[in-house]
């Protein structure tokens, strides 16, 4: 195992976030704070509790997920896309590193960044609404799993994309709608029955539901199903990455 390589890639990626501190960490916090002002305070005052949870608190897990998903994907995809774009990837390819080590460096750093962002958002939310976390360990587990799986997913997108447009395509056209329609700001049970069924095809629903359960013990689907779905997604990403590894996809001609 080339531990030094994992270390320098990880450090490089973390340094990049640090040098663009405002963009990396402040902007998700600001946008989350805005959501709280708009949804939590302005609209939340007029909405009764959902499933026995005050609306302002109810949206916290969804908001965190929204940030985690977009940040994980953005960080990881950009991290590997950019060296491909500038050509500096030649060095990684000519180095004695395995695909696993490349993955650990890039995905590890991206997951760490979104984990930090998630925690910052949680702390920010604490300013606006009183928060209690019923199952902190489960909360941490969902948090970590989400960061890792979606950073992996972002890595795949970053490898696949050969221009900036493709890099933006999936996050914009797939992820953002799925998260907004995945029960970030409402309970699935509030939807008409037909849409409830449709919603069950949205994988993000399971993610948010499980995450919300770890906070308030209320959920749209059972926790076991949520967990299984997250793990299945993680496994799928690992499979794809493994295939990319074997074929040298988009890296070696």
């Amino acid at each position, binding site marked *: 195992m080339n531990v030094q390589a994992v270390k320098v890639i990880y450090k490089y990626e973390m340094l990049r976030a640090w040098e663009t501190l405002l963009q990396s960490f402040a902007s998700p916090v600001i946008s989350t704070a805005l959501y709280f002002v708009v949804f939590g305070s302005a609209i939340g005052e007029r909405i009764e509790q959902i499933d026995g949870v005050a609306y302002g608190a109810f949206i916290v897990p969804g908001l965190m997920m929204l940030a985690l998903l977009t940040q994980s994907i953005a960080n990881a995809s950009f991290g590997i896309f950019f060296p491909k774009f*500038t050509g*500096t990837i030649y060095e990684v390819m*000519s180095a004695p*590193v395995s695909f696993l080590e490349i993955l650990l460096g890039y995905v590890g750093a991206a997951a760490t960044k979104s984990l930090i962002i998630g925690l910052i958002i949680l702390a920010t939310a604490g300013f606006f609404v009183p928060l209690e976390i019923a199952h902190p360990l489960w909360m941490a587990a969902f948090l970590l799993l989400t960061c890792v799986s979606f950073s992996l997913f972002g890595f795949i997108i970053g490898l696949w994309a050969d221009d900036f447009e493709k890099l933006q395509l999936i996050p914009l056209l797939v992820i953002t709608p799925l998260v907004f329609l995945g029960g970030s700001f409402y309970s699935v049970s509030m939807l008409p029955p037909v849409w409830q069924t449709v919603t069950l095809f949205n994988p993000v629903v399971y993610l948010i539901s499980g995450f919300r359960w770890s906070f308030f013990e209320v959920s749209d689907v059972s926790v076991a199903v949520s967990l299984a779905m997250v793990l299945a997604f993680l496994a799928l990403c690992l499979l794809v990455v493994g295939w990319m590894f074997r074929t040298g996809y988009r890296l*070696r*001609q």
Partner: protein
Amino acid sequence: MQPIVSIVNLSKTYADGHQALKDVSLEIAEGEILALLGPNGAGKTTLISIICGIVNASEGAVTVDGHDIVRDYRHTRALIGLVPQELTLGHFDKVWNTLCFSRGLFGRAPDPAYVERLLKDLSLWSKKDTEIMALSGGMKRRVLIGKALAHEPKVLFLDEPTAGVDVELRKDMWALVRELRESGVTIILTTHYIEEAEEIADRVGIIDGGKLILVEDKQELMQKLGRKAMIVELEEPLSGVPDTLAHWGLELSGDGCRLTYTYDPRSTRTGIPGLLQAIGEAGLVVKDFKTTQSSLEEIFVSLVKGRA
């Protein structure tokens, strides 16, 4: 002695069907400087990219230090440093950081003293905290060399190191290459500047159209293929070569003041004394004369032409 790099029947066909390398075999001895000479598109970068692990070979095999570059990539790549043809660098990276990154990427533990020495050798020490985008082209080239040397490789590939580089830096670079060779590093450089190969290499390989046309010790190559020319300057211009000198195959310059005689220096009788005598007998007054050796460039042109 076992070659440090051994290339056997290597071929590469790119996805678009273009065959960039055709059955190339080559052995590179430890500690030598080999220049791969060839026009643009000859396949030089492709060959290097395969050895370094950036491009997959279609056929054939390469071993470095006796290890297969695919199966034992960890061993072989750790031994190799690559200075790529393009100035591919992270614009926002700082010089010091990027060298430390390279060192770690190749599996070496941090060694600030070594990196410091390297930066000083490359006259980059004062720029160590500068972002790369603020550097001149020549300095960027040096950063690339620094990155390639950061993990103390035994084999160094320089892909057109002096393309677009000023004379000063070119001299520095050659000095550095010689110094590296002194320390036992094997150097393979590609170039389409013949003077470069001529000046610095121990051996020269000529690539054209994906084929390795020949590999030869530089001196031998020049001797074997290099023809010498004797140029005779005349006091009075001539309108044509006198009939008595016709069988010497002389060339007369445009102004009629110079006669050029080409000959093979390997032959036991060059005919020079006879020619000088014949010139005298023809009543021509010689002002001056000199001999010149044809450069690799001329050799190269004649080789490539000969194949076409």
